[in-house]
């Protein structure tokens, strides 16, 4: 029986391919074959794919609406909070102390072993060091503080660690990035690795970096976090969204941060 099988197999393949024009007409770049977990080449900022008017808005510090959040963050940095009435500045000093901080997030907190993004670290300081009431995810003060801290790293290259305790988080993020999800059955990678630079309707798909976050998005008429953006992508493919602060978001963010390694932070970005 074994002997006849190769023959039958060949016949089947020939039959199957007789009418398959689809393979020919498909650009190889549009299929899932580029799913390998590698950085896009060349690495390009999200703003590169935004319309020119939006790029101009981001580049001009006075036009960039995200700077309103940065300014508010600067105030909150000096504002005493919590039972000890201490401000962020009381522990950290001036803005210079935060230079480069955002390039190293998400990172594993050695004390708890938890993966923290920048927002998570700010909230941890607030609860443990200031003994202040927690800030809600996506609240204005949290976005403002995050935007201010991220702004201190503008122009500096991303350089997160994926070694040691970060490794398992990174691997899970990488897997999730390749996972097809939702009713539309698409993965992050199929859009942001295999199809960046192409048009999805009126939108140009970028390489999917988080280096501009928090961003001011015209569609939101406000600032939003990277987690909010990930929720938009998931809802776009009709997938269940991950909750704010979820492990899934953090792991994905770590993978994104590694993937953007060497790319400069451009927060606060402006997007359409």
């Amino acid at each position, binding site marked *: 029986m074994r002997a006849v*099988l190769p023959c*039958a*197999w060949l*016949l*089947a*393949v020939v*039959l*199957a*391919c*007789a*009418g*398959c*024009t*689809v*393979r020919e*007409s*498909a650009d190889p770049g*549009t*299929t*899932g*074959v580029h799913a390998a977990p590698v950085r896009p080449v060349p690495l390009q900022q999200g703003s590169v794919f935004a319309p020119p008017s939006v790029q101009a808005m981001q580049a001009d510090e006075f036009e960039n609406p995200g700077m309103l959040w940065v300014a508010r963050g600067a105030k909150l940095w000096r504002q005493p909070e919590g039972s000890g009435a201490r401000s962020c500045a009381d522990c950290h000093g001036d803005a210079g102390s935060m230079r480069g901080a955002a390039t190293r997030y998400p990172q594993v907190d050695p004390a708890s072993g938890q993966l923290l993004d920048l927002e998570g670290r700010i909230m941890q300081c607030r609860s443990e060091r200031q003994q202040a009431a927690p800030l809600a995810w996506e609240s204005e003060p949290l976005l403002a503080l995050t935007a201010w801290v991220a702004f201190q790293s503008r122009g500096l290259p991303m350089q997160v660690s994926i070694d040691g305790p970060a490794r398992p988080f990174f691997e899970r993020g990488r897997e999730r990035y390749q*996972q*097809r*999800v*939702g*009713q*539309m*059955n*698409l993965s992050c990678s*199929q859009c942001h690795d*295999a*199809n960046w630079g*192409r*048009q*999805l*309707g*009126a939108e140009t798909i970028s390489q999917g970096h988080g280096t501009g976050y928090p961003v001011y998005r015209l569609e939101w008429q406000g600032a939003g976090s990277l987690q909010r953006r990930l929720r938009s992508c*998931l*809802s776009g493919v*009709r*997938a*269940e*969204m991950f909750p704010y602060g979820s492990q899934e978001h953090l792991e994905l963010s770590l993978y994104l941060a590694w993937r953007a390694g060497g790319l400069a932070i451009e927060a606060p970005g402006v997007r359409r």
Partner: protein
Amino acid sequence: MDTGGTRIGRVAGMRPGTMATMASALLLAMTLMPAAASLAAAPAVDAIERPLVDGATDPLRGRAIALGRDGNCLLCHGLVDAGRPTGNLAPPLDGVAARLGAGQIRQRVVNPALTNPNTIMPAYFVVDGLRQVAEPWRGKPILDAQQIEDLVAWLQTLR
């Protein structure tokens, strides 16, 4: 036939006759195949000849489905007279009926993975094998059988 069912994807609201057509295509494919071959390597089902519903179809309604939020086809496909920006992740729909027969077009919309397992195009009439589908859409195909047939009717006008 279990594996066959998975391969083609469980479809919703399909009438028995159509299922039989699809099933017999698969049966043919599977008898030609080494038993141990992986599902991904199964020979392609290139065409679904039987319409999913009997009765009238409306190409104009099909066009509205393609251009509107139900089908969202132009997110990826171009169309010369769309009248607005379209995507370019996929070949333009213009002239599709000159390239493919009705059965092939139906297959591409029902479950394009049958001819291209790596395709990024969603299967519009399959509910199996999907993960993490948001609640409002869980267990439902993207389009219903009538919508698929209206769509196929419109696509056949694109010569």
